[in-house]
């Protein structure tokens, strides 16, 4: 009986394992291998640090991702806490609006940035009215920053609201009963309680920003983030080995960030059920 059940379970999961191995594990292994098939061999993996353009690209991407993460966390914490702890008419609607962009692909977000800050963008028109000169920043790092912020905020807000919702309200009341003014309650009690959620969503934010491609692609070509570098290496320079090695490294970075998030956010690592 046990053996029959075991083999039935294997039958159920085998298709997935086969598909996955064939279409993900093997190709990824191949990619790693190809990364070292160029003229420099395995040395290509060091390119990211040694070739100035690549290195700058890496730094730019890291810096951008970090700044986006910090900003998204700040903005979302304020709004997320506010929404979770206050009930007022229209709250549900506001929440839906805020989480609506969750499903937008990067290209659409790039388009949104153009709407806001492009040559005919809203900000351009407004600044033209106010100061006489148009501010256009969609096609630069600032535009990318806006775009990344755009898709990060909904995610982080949801996480913050969930974490804030799980807090025992009595703890806050206890702090107040001991005389703590509102700011102290936030610093001493609320933020520490949110810490796991902040770390987790911060890491996701970072990983997503590192690996984002669609937004940069839409906002055009003089933006030098790592995914764009990979893309140009592959399509324009036909440098397959270079593109491969860079992708592998990028993949490692994002995976590492998410891994850190999971270990910090969860307690013990028990699978479901």
């Amino acid at each position: 009986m046990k053996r029959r059940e075991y083999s039935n379970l294997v039958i159920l999961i085998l298709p997935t394992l086969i598909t996955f191995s064939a279409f993900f594990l093997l190709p990824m292994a191949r990619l790693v291998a190809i990364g070292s098939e160029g003229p420099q061999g395995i040395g290509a993996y060091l390119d990211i640090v040694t070739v100035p353009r690549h290195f700058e690209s890496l730094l730019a991407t890291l810096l951008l991702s970090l700044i986006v993460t910090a900003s998204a966390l700040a903005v979302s914490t304020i709004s997320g806490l506010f929404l979770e702890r206050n009930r007022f008419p229209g709250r549900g609607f506001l929440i839906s609006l805020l989480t609506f962009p969750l499903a937008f692909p990067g290209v659409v977000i790039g388009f949104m940035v153009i709407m806001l800050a492009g040559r005919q963008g809203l900000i351009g028109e407004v600044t033209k009215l106010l100061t006489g000169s148009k501010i256009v920043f969609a096609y630069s790092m600032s535009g990318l920053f806006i775009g990344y912020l755009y898709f990060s905020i909904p995610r982080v807000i949801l996480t913050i609201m969930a974490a804030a919702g799980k807090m025992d309200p009595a703890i806050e009341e206890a702090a107040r009963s001991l005389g703590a003014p509102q700011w102290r309650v936030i610093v001493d009690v609320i933020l520490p309680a949110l810490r796991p959620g902040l770390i987790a969503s911060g890491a996701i934010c970072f990983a997503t920003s590192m690996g984002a491609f669609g937004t940069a692609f839409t906002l055009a070509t003089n933006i030098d983030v790592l995914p764009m570098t990979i893309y140009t290496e592959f399509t324009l320079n036909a440098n397959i080995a270079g593109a491969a090695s860079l992708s592998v490294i990028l993949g490692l970075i994002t995976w590492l960030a998410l891994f850190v998030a999971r270990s910090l956010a969860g307690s013990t690592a028990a699978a479901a059920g």
Partner: protein
Amino acid sequence: MTDHGTAIRLEACAKTFANGVRALAPLALEIAGGETVVLLGPSGCGKTTTLRIIAGLEVPDPGGRVLFDEDDVTVLPIEERNIGMVFQSYALFPNMSVRANIAYGLRVRRLDRNAIDARVDEMMAMMDIAELAHRRIDQLSGGQSQRVALARAIAVRPRVLLLDEPLTALDAFLRTRLRVEIDRLLRGLGITAVYVTHDQAEAMSLGDRIVVMNEGRVAQVGTPRDIYYRPATDFVADFIGTINRIRGVVRGDRVECRAGHLPWSAGGGGEIEVLFRPEDVTITAPDDAHLTGRVVSSFFLGDRTKLILEGFDGREVVIETTDRREFGPGTEVAFRVDADALISLKG
């Protein structure tokens, strides 16, 4: 903190919540300095709302006033009232150690380091938790957590100590033990305390006075003895302990009913309901008895036997006796009721 503790007065405090629920009808209450008052009642009776109004976590409806001694604190938020509060879930700060928890109120008041340390040590000694100083909150047992919560609340020398069902989350044994400790603590400190519970044993043992509440209103205020021996309403009589009800007709110096009669000294006439408690009964010979019933079930509790009797106009009567005999189901039992213990609520 004054010598005799802070007096609390509530005037016309009502509370209707945003969703329209009327949790509290206008309530007036006077609590003397140093007194321990217990708010007792079933869930939803308004006792927690009252406590939170005293605390400053809820604002009473317009017209209500809260006074600490002569200070009107109605519009003061909780963080400015200088109270100590103990919560049902303990509400200890998970990101701080035990020491840091107890020290928190003192840190907020910006006392200097030495003063804080001294006071925390004093509190931990008083609550007998000195060895837990550096433990993390999630490593504490229920009883330990409650002691830490008490220490934390008292450390700031509050004017008033408010306790919101602090023992409800503990098992029965711990509850009984901690009840004694809390009682000793409150007496030793001489602090004014308001204690909310639904457990009448807790209320009776801790309270100088008990406020019995039901459906947003006060049913009765009195000492434990008042409440027990002289319940003012049906609700109080039923809620506290066990009560027996006998319906009968007043005829001269007795109340006559199906199962016999009861002595009656208050005069008057007509139909009446008389109440008495199980322990105010003595089993006698049928000739001397007031009432007779038939045993439905009997419970030997060691120090006494509890009998459930039928034959009282469709109702059952519970009596307790120290008589050592066994009373099997179906046995006829005759008993007298102590005349002083009879309670009548409608006249």
